[in-house]
């Protein structure tokens, strides 16, 4: 167990490698109750989110989810978010645990003047994710919902193990899977039912360490590693989340528009390390021996069997021989497109 954003979280239940592979091959069960849930409700909720975030949330259909970001006035990323539209005038914003207070504060400030109410609902929700190719088969017998009707990045109200829940086809692993938002007092029953129903199909509980290597293989950024106030969505290769054509103003528009037209000052890329040593967060990337970037995340890839990393590189590094300075030694690395793993190409 490890302290994490005020919660005591399992880094691993048994072996993070076994947990990672279970998610890729069968299913893993995650307790993500630390994630922040912020409710934005009222007739002006969509407009308030359009102003507060970089995405077009008023255009999101009820029952759908969107990956988006909240930026500062200078375009720096304050957090990356998933927003669900639970109803016509009801949105649920999912923030990283460590950022929940900051996101809540910014949303509340930015919603001023809109006919919308912003509430930190984190304590009202537990979140259990079941992820992997067997996830749908494990969840289906426990719910009356027709899971085939819930498309990727969509969700529906229903019951799981007889308990009320918002069931969404979202996740952070690169696999098919579901996230079950429920009342905290119902979480144990839902966890137990998924465990009982899934064990035969290969489901095991998975901790934070596996969650990190799964998202890394899937090329998904992590706030504090790839994302932070010193980068805009464009550096992270996620400029598509910024919707300049949405109605009205939004915080950060001017700075982001300037960045969109000038091009990013650095770019996020994938690296495969030609060694068994791991290129870790903060290690320098070298091009022809000169420092040209920094590793943001690195881990052994259980799927590929080699160490992988994400790094920010200066534009000038393109096409040069790369290496990573691993504790004083230059270890050869080669650039590769993200993601490292795409389930649609694997199966």
């Amino acid at each position, binding site marked *: 167990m490890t302290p994490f954003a005020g919660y005591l979280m399992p*880094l691993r239940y048994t072996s993070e*490698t076994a947990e990672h592979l279970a998610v890729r091959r069968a299913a893993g069960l995650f307790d993500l109750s630390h994630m922040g849930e912020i409710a934005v409700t009222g007739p002006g909720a969509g407009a308030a989110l359009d102003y507060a975030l970089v995405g077009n949330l008023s255009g999101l259909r009820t029952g759908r989810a969107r990956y988006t970001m909240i930026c500062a006035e200078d375009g720096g990323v304050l957090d990356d978010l998933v927003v669900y539209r639970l109803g016509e005038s009801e949105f649920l914003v999912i923030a990283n645990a460590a950022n929940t207070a900051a996101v809540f504060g910014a949303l509340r400030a930015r919603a001023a003047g809109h006919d919308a109410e912003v509430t930190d609902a984190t304590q009202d929700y537990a979140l259990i994710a079941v992820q992997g190719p067997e996830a749908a088969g494990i969840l289906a017998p426990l719910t009356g919902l027709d899971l085939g009707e819930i498309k990727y990045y969509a969700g529906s109200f229903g019951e799981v193990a007889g308990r009320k829940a918002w069931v969404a086809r979202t996740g952070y692993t690169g696999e098919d899977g579901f996230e079950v938002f429920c009342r905290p007092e119902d979480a144990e029953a839902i966890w137990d039912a998924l465990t009982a129903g899934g064990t035969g199909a290969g489901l095991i509980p998975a901790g934070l360490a596996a969650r990190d*290597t799964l998202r890394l293989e899937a090329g998904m950024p992590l706030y504090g590693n790839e994302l932070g106030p010193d980068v805009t969505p464009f550096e992270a290769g996620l400029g598509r989340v910024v919707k300049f054509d949405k109605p009205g103003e939004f915080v950060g528009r001017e700075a982001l528009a300037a960045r969109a037209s000038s091009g990013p000052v650095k770019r996020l890329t994938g690296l495969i390390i030609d060694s*068994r*040593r791991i290129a*870790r967060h903060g290690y320098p990337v070298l091009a022809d021996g000169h420092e040209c970037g920094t590793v943001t995340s690195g881990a052994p890839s259980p799927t590929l069997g080699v160490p992988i990393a994400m790094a920010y590189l200066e534009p000038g590094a393109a096409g040069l021989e790369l290496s990573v300075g691993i*504790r004083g030694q230059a270890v050869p690395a080669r650039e590769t497109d993200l993601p490292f793993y795409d389930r649609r190409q694997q199966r």
Partner: protein
Amino acid sequence: MSVPADLHYTPEHEWVSVEGDVASVGITDYAAQQLGDVVYISLPATGAAVSAGEPCGEVESVKSVSDLYSPVDGEVVEVNAELEDDPSLVNAEPYSSGWMFRVRVAQDSNGDAALPADLLSASDYEELTKSAG
């Protein structure tokens, strides 16, 4: 968590087993559990001189990298080559197949291996891990 009674320990979570003038060294079950899955181990070269308390290698796990210290003074006479292919032996059997290296240590006037005075007993080491949480 297992702490075999017949071994010596260090505050750096390594164990030492002495036979004649050769000390075998590995990391403890506690250390292996804290590190998580070990993926790579850099061991000292056979023939290298090592000093007690000095780094002589590295242990990489999925989440972290740690220095490996020599608990004793002497010359490395053997390293566990199997760890090259299967570093997970350190997690599976830290006190047996997961051993790391062997050092020939100097002998004291009685002909016994001269070990540093600050090595811990099993009970002392167990206390240490408990106070660490």
